[in-house]
């Protein structure tokens, strides 16, 4: 085993002994490592794939940084990284807005690195407990690829839940100005809008129709996707016309999972990433793995909260700790918040926390997941409230508040 692989394995092993949760603030990190086989005709086989993933979550915003690097015997072959910021509005009458910004860089040892910045806005319409749809658009600006203009992106999607699985269908259209060499133009018989020096610029566009399936049951997660790319032969290479892939993840505990899967991923022309076929079996080591829901924005549904705990926190604060899996948001509300929702921060796959001051006395508290109905938390005394619901009764005595 060469030195680079040993280094990667050492990093992975180090993550098995993570720092105390308190030191991680709101960071979530995921690290994947495994033995991968990638074949696009150039890359060698049997490589390691390193995929760090960091999240910083706020109630209505999140920042994500993730990347992946395929490492061969000697060096990094392909690496790409992306930093994303997402801002979501509160849900009003089932409508929610989302704004996404991405900045990414891809490095391929066969060519120069490429960069891209893109911004998208989406409007989501949520159908209570059943599904939803969204539509939106944006603009992407790539550099150092054979695209000379910003690219317009228009997208729409619809999702629903079937037998515990979330099924999503999306259509995304890309249109941009592309540079083509003279011989390519002649071979493809395409029109040339601005010919110069043996090359020309022409309008290109293609559309991706994709279906995604996500299912979670106990420690098992299944993800599958399939897609078709519309466009003429000039804009869509044969290896990116159709694709499908599937991944299975089995969580051994909160931090370690076995991952296996395979399939084909299409090329991403705006990011300069080639189409890839892959088959992989690996280990996912996660400090605090985030949910991999196929639905990008939360929807109202009823999920049972597994546990509710209250711990003393520094500076006279109390920390609410809730365990519930498979959700995007968890809120609490009570007399202590003037009956306004407070959103908890995800600390793990099914772990949510919120620190706040709680005065001594009896407090009424309710909890909800994904904007669903308010419920009394489990494991505490309960009573009917004055408005037809149930509330939990939380006792804070003077000793616990000191």
């Amino acid at each position, binding site marked *: 085993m060469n030195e680079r692989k040993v280094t990667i394995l050492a990093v992975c092993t180090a993550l098995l002994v993570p720092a105390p949760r308190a030191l991680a603030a709101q960071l979530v990190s995921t690290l994947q490592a495994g033995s991968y086989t990638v074949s696009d005709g150039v890359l060698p086989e049997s490589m390691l794939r390193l995929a760090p993933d960091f999240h910083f979550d706020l109630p209505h915003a999140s920042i994500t940084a993730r990347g992946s690097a395929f490492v061969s015997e000697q060096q990094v072959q392909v690496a790409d990284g992306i930093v994303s910021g997402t801002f979501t509005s509160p849900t009003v009458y089932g409508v929610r807005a989302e704004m996404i910004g991405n900045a990414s860089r891809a490095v391929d040892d066969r060519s120069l690195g490429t960069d891209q910045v893109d911004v998208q806005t989406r409007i989501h319409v949520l159908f209570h407990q059943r599904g939803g749809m969204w539509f939106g658009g944006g603009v992407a600006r790539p550099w150092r690829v054979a695209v000379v203009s910003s690219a317009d992106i228009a997208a729409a999607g619809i999702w629903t839940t079937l037998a515990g699985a979330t099924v999503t269908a999306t259509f995304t259209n890309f249109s941009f100005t592309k540079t083509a060499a003279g011989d390519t133009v002649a071979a493809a018989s395409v029109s040339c809008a601005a010919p110069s020096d043996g090359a020309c610029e022409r309008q290109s566009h293609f559309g991706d129709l994709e279906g995604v399936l996500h299912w979670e049951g106990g420690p098992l997660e299944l993800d599958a996707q399939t897609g078709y790319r519309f466009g003429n032969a000039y804009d869509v290479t044969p290896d990116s016309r159709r694709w499908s892939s599937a991944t299975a993840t089995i969580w051994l505990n909160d931090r370690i999972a076995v991952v296996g899967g395979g399939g084909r991923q299409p090329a991403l022309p705006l990011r300069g990433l080639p189409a890839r076929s892959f088959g992989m079996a690996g280990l996912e080591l996660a400090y605090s793995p985030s949910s991999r829901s196929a639905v990008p924005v939360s929807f109202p549904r009823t999920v049972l909260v597994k546990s509710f705990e209250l711990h003393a926190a520094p500076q006279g604060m109390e920390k609410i700790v809730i365990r519930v899996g498979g959700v995007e948001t968890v809120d609490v509300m009570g007399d202590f918040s003037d009956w306004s929702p407070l959103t908890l921060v995800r600390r793990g796959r099914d772990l949510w926390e919120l620190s706040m001051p709680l005065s001594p006395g*009896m407090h009424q508290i309710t909890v909800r997941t994904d904007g669903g109905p308010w419920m009394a938390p489990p494991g505490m005394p309960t009573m009917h409230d004055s408005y037809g619901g149930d509330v939990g009764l939380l006792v804070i005595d003077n000793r616990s508040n000191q």
Partner: protein
Amino acid sequence: MTPFRRFRRTAAALVGGGALVALPAFGATAQDPDPLSRLDANSRFAIELIIDSANTAGLPTRPLMSKVLEGFSHKADGRRITAVVRTEFGYLKTAHATLGGVSEEELAAAAAVLEAGAKPSQLAAFRVRQKGRSDLEAFTDWADLLTRGVPRDDASSAITKLWQDGADDATFHNLWRSVQTDILQGLNPGTALQNRVRETPGGPATRKVTPPEGQQENQSSR
């Protein structure tokens, strides 16, 4: 259309979208300096009168305002909120008359017990207490037992007996946890309490009561 113009057009659309995203969020986080302003005039007048009455009687007004805000969170109308606040005022007044000068927190907890179904006279045993002893846990567990369908007199006598025997918070909490576990497993709420209170330190040590056949269903009112 040139790339630059297309970029400008798209950027303008995104700025508009961003504003659409941001405005509701700012609105959601803004604090309302006068929550009562969200009520209709009649309801506001009625609730202000109740709050004035509470002040005059030396009762805390925070529980009353909390009921108003809770009503907003449930999207209740003004009349409903007014009725709830008036009822809560009644509970606070009764609890104050029964318990005497106790803290605001204890008064609110006692009001919750009354709201759950206890009789005012059943609170009387809590008027006398050792210095520094809190009845919050006892009241909380009591309210839960009543909500789960334990007969009012059974719940009252069990909680009162433990209180008079000097039971601490952990004893009350353990009793509640055991009873609610039994109820969730299908035992009759009254029977569950009787069984568990005998096992509790200070309770009478007699034979465990077994419900007759066909009585295993949870008869909780929940």
